[in-house]
């Protein structure tokens, strides 16, 4: 039994093996992009919104309100990043119930990739917000002695993000597979239902933690206003 879909090769093209993690990621990407395209292709102000468009608006506005509540700053860049994180993870986790589909988030490579993305995004958003000097200065706060600890903290946050998501999803998938072998009826259904809840919560946690990390790296709105007034 493979614990990770990385070892399952779906097909090979030009000497490059495409494993289930990547292939299933493409499926999720196609699903999300295709649905978005279909629902939003005829989106005009004079056309009354249908239920699908309303559903997307609820999702997007829900994500945006959560981000705004945490980051306390309006801005679409964070929505694009964190919203995509949440939608990708939650879709992946929810598709866990589809027989034969192995969620990419059950792969440590995927969670590591997402965690690395967050790890890179934090300084990028920080530098964009505070400037390079301002961002680097945060590593010296509250004193220079804290520099190594801050660096360790930065990497450990990425590591914890990757391991937490991977562990939860992988364990859920593995437990469901084991139970399917031991007790094929009833118990796998319950575990799958639990896995859906867990997957939703993990996606929320991952997105919220990413938002917290990025917003902590960026300047507070009051600080920015004071800086502008000082100029």
């Amino acid at each position, binding site marked *: 039994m493979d614990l990770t879909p990385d070892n399952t090769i779906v097909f090979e093209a030009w000497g490059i093996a495409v494993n289930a993690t990547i292939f299933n990621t493409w499926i999720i990407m196609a699903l999300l992009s295709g649905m978005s395209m279909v629902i939003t292709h005829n989106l005009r102000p004079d056309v009354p919104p249908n239920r699908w468009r309303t559903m997307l608006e609820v999702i997007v*506005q829900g994500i945006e309100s959560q981000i705004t509540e945490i980051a306390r700053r309006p801005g679409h860049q964070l929505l694009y990043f964190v919203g995509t994180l949440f939608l990708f993870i939650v879709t992946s986790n929810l598709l866990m119930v589809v027989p034969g589909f192995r969620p990419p988030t059950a792969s440590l490579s995927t969670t590591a990739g997402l965690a690395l993305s967050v790890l890179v995004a934090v300084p990028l958003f920080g530098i964009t917000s505070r400037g390079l000097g301002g961002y680097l200065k945060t590593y010296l706060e509250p004193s220079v002695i804290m520099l190594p600890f801050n660096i360790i903290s930065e990497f450990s946050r990425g590591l914890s993000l990757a391991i937490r998501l991977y562990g939860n999803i992988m364990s859920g998938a593995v437990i469901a597979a084991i139970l399917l072998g031991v007790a094929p009826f009833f118990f796998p259904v319950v575990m799958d239902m639990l896995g859906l809840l867990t997957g939703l919560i993990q996606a929320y946690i991952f997105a919220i933690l990413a938002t917290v990390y990025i917003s902590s790296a960026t300047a507070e709105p009051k600080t920015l206003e004071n800086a502008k007034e000082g100029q």
Partner: protein
Amino acid sequence: MSIDWITVAAQIANFLVLVWLLKRFLYRPILDGIDAREAEIADRMSEAARVRQKAEAAEAAYQDRLSALRSGESAMIDSVRQKAEEERDALLAEAREKLERERKNWNEQREEEASQYTADLHRAGAGALLSLTRKALGDLADETLEERIVAHVSKRLTAISEDLRKAAGDSTAAVATTRDPLPQDARARLKADLRKLLPKVTLRFETDAAQAPGLILRLGGAQVAWTVDTYIDGLNALLEEGIATGRITKSANR
């Protein structure tokens, strides 16, 4: 638990592509649509507020116009009432004036008729009296009325000869006026009687149709007259007394 770094790199690339795809096909259209709808709602709300303001202004103008019409209506009613009262007063005054005029005319007509009647009565009485006197004198004394008048005047002239002489002064002309021409013998007798009293005075005779039957003698500033007027007045007094006491009625007069 192993990490395939190629897969990690591929997943990072996939994630970034997914970010771009969702930004292109999900976030942008949805957020733009929300912004457009919010802008449209704001426009509609401002339009609704503008329309509401316009409607309130129109309502206020309508209310002003209505109140103006109401106040104008009461003013018009007052004006019409005042005009009607003035017209009524004018009509009443005109009617009163007309009534007064008619009453005055009626009074004048009645007085005229009364005076006419009195004059007629006077003439009729005078005529009757003269006829009766003339007939009585002819039947009982074999004399004419003119002879008796001249005799009466001569008698009165004798009684007042002194006074007459003083009143005549230097005047030498006397005039005897009658309604009808006097007979020649009556004229001669009167001339003779006057010559006895006033020898220098010459007498001439004249007639006056408007004068009452009788004779009036004018000499200087003096005048001696005998006419039936005094008798007629006495007759009128008797008739009025008879009417007042009820012995004579108007129907009887007719």
